[in-house]
């Protein structure tokens, strides 16, 4: 059942109002107004989102709300509208985006309190919210792409927010370019879908239409389309091979890291795969690729996170790792699990970033964990909320992360990806380790903080701590909507999403609780190791690092991937462009030919000019040659 629902437009309208207000009036009207309008519009959008959600709940399962704004692109027979829709899946996403977004905006009021460019900041943030809402509300792939690129833009702008630092600016661009590479794949994926459908006479990218005409796809075409779209997802969601931008993106203001680079934008890839679940189901090998990439990324990023000392970098790699989990989930066919993890991850990772931000804010910009420690007492609220988040991400029941991760691992196992399951479990252990390492290094032990900074260290103001508390509550109990089936109210979440993303049916019999227990055990082992290394025997990590220097360096240097890309892509590209194409082809070959022709003509002119010696007799001689020539021609005619 589809219902036209005008309020969908309003959900977009308010962030848009925020953008325009902050852009044109923000700086003029001053901080007070911006601090109200910036978060305010998102809270209104949140309220509207809840309204829409309630409306969906009140309607029969599988219903969706729809609202067409206007016709958008028409070319040839192809047609696509600017249309919005909300179904179970997007309802969840809207709530995540606006809900968490609203609190992070609120938090930003405090975090940006000392920054002069607050209006610009809120312009970008509101624009981000707008783009993200377009992404999740889009009723077709192309419009989704509008949001997709829009959030990428905001990400770019916010990473480079403090533009005076050239490195920050560089990192922003790096993010955008990496995303663009993925987006190229996304575009090709869309084109493939159009072409396939168009071949059957259907010219649309509408999700509903694609779903209705799945019969036009063969396994091959579906696989191609899915893989290309997934390339887009690897860019946006920071998976191998395009993950490199995300760690660098941490140079942006911390609320940005929380909102964009943890809670919402980076999960767009997962959302996209879940949104197109029907198409991915047609392409088992594409699913396999998604799951594998997810799992490998999860492990890979986790290992890097172990050795990082920058608090936000650790969280960044953790995010990559968790995103890998989500892809493992959706790639295994457990779409609901993936989205569930999107939600819980939004809670706890958003919270983690906000806490980290609170620490950084409190320490006046310090990000290096080796210069923290013992902050437990200085910032208690931050400590406690962060503890909750850390437990949640480490998948300790009954905190939220446990349920979603458990569901994903069950999915991986259940779909027969035993190897991937093992990777997932190991990663769970690693996650527990590095997260508690972070917690221990920051809040426990002796203070290694610069005394000067320590003197000023303080707990953050309420405008920042309130969001922490709200999110902590969510991170703690947010997972309860997706309890294992048969336990209390069971898996409400999956049931709610089922009409949209289908239900996961294991192909392999699962040993049930045992799986959860194994994963939990491994996680706890990880936490214990962290305790041993950073609380019990704080000198040990250095010893290990010294002993396994090669491995340590490899991890510290993030497997040298950045350097590798630099060596095989960036540098050759510049070399070829500058020396071969610009100087070689353009200047030398083409312009050389052009100018050469000119010079040749002038030279021949200059030579021919010499025939005009000024001497009458030479002229007569030339004349005579002409005579001889013409007479010879007629002689030839006669003799012929």
């Amino acid at each position, binding site marked *: 059942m589809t219902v036209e629902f005008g309020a969908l437009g309003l959900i977009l309208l308010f962030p848009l109002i925020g953008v325009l207000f902050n852009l044109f009036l923000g700086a003029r009207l001053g901080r007070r107004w911006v601090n109200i309008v910036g978060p305010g519009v998102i809270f209104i959008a949140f309220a509207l989102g809840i309204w829409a959600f309630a409306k969906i709940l009140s309607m029969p399962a599988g219903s969706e709300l729809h609202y067409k704004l206007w016709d958008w692109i028409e070319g040839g027979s192809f047609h696509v509208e600017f249309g919005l829709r909300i179904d179970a899946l997007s309802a969840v996403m809207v709530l995540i985006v606006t809900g968490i977004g609203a609190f992070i905006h609120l938090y930003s009021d405090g975090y940006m309190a000392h920054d002069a460019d607050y209006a610009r900041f809120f312009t970008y943030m509101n624009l981000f919210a707008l783009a993200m809402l377009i992404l999740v509300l889009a009723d077709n792939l192309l419009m989704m792409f509008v949001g997709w690129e829009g959030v990428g833009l905001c990400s770019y702008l916010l990473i480079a927010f403090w533009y005076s630092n050239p490195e920050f600016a560089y990192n922003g661009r790096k993010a955008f370019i990496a995303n663009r590479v993925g987006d190229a794949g996304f575009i090709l994926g869309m084109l493939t879908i159009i072409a396939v459908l168009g071949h059957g006479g259907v010219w649309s990218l509408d999700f509903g239409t694609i779903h209705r005409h799945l019969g036009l796809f063969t396994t091959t075409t579906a696989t191609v389309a899915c893989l290309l779209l997934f390339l887009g997802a690897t860019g946006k969601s920071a998976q191998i091979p395009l993950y490199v931008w995300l760690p660098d993106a941490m140079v942006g203001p911390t609320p940005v890291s929380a909102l964009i680079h943890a809670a919402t934008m980076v999960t767009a890839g997962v959302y996209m795969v879940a949104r197109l679940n029907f198409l991915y189901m047609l392409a088992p090998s594409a699913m396999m690729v998604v799951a594998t990439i997810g799992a490998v990324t999860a492990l890979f990023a986790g290992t890097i996170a172990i050795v990082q000392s920058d608090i936000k970098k650790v969280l960044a790699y953790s995010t990559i790792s968790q995103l890998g989990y989500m892809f493992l989930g959706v790639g295994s066919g457990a779409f609901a699990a993936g989205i569930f993890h999107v939600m819980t991850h939004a809670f706890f990772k958003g919270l983690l970033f906000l806490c980290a931000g609170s620490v950084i804010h409190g320490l006046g910009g310090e990000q290096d964990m080796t210069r923290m420690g013992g902050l437990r007492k200085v910032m208690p609220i931050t400590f406690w909320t962060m503890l909750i988040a850390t437990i949640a991400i480490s998948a300790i029941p009954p905190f939220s992360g446990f349920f979603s991760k458990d569901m994903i691992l069950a999915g991986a196992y259940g779909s027969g990806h035993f190897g991937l399951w093992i990777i997932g479990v190991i990663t769970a252990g690693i996650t527990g380790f590095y997260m508690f390492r972070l917690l221990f290094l920051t809040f426990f032990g002796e203070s290694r903080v610069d005394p000067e900074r320590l003197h000023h260290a303080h707990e953050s103001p309420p405008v920042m701590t309130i969001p922490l508390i709200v999110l902590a509550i969510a991170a703690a109990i947010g997972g309860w909507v997706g309890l294992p089936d048969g336990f209390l109210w069971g898996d409400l979440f999956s049931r709610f999403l089922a009409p949209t993303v289908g239900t996961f049916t294991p192909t392999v019999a699962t040993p049930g609780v045992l799986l959860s227990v194994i994963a939990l055990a491994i996680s706890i082992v990880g936490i214990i190791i962290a305790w041993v290394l950073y609380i019990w025997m704080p000198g040990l990590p250095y010893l290990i690092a010294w002993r396994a220097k090669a491995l340590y360096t490899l991890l510290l240097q993030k497997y040298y991937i950045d350097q590798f890309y630099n060596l095989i892509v960036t540098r050759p590209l510049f070399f070829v462009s500058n020396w071969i194409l610009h100087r070689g082809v353009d200047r030398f070959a083409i312009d050389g030919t052009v100018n050469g022709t000119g010079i040749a003509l002038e030279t021949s002119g200059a030579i021919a*000019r*010499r025939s*005009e*010696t*000024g*001497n*009458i*007799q030479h002229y*007569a*001689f030339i004349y*005579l040659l002409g005579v001889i020539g013409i007479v010879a021609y007629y002689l030839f005619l006669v003799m012929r």
Partner: protein
Amino acid sequence: MVPLPYMMALSAIVFVIGVAGFITRRNILIMFMSVELMLNAVNLAFIGLASRLGTMDGQVIVFFVMTVAAAEAAVGLAIIISVFRNRETVRADELNLLKW
């Protein structure tokens, strides 16, 4: 009557002698004389052809050519004089202010 080829050959020879003189002699007066040779060669051809064709046109033309030659001589010699006045030379290869 003299066979026509003889006449034509003679005319051609004189004509080419004129051409050769024009190209090889540097004195502009002699070059002009060579032109007169060429004109006379043509006259020879006209007269020879006219008498074979039995028309008077050829002879009339020779009459015109002579007039033209006279007119050319008058103007030409005047030009030569005015050149000589300014440049004190009648050598063709020294008249090369204008070139290239």
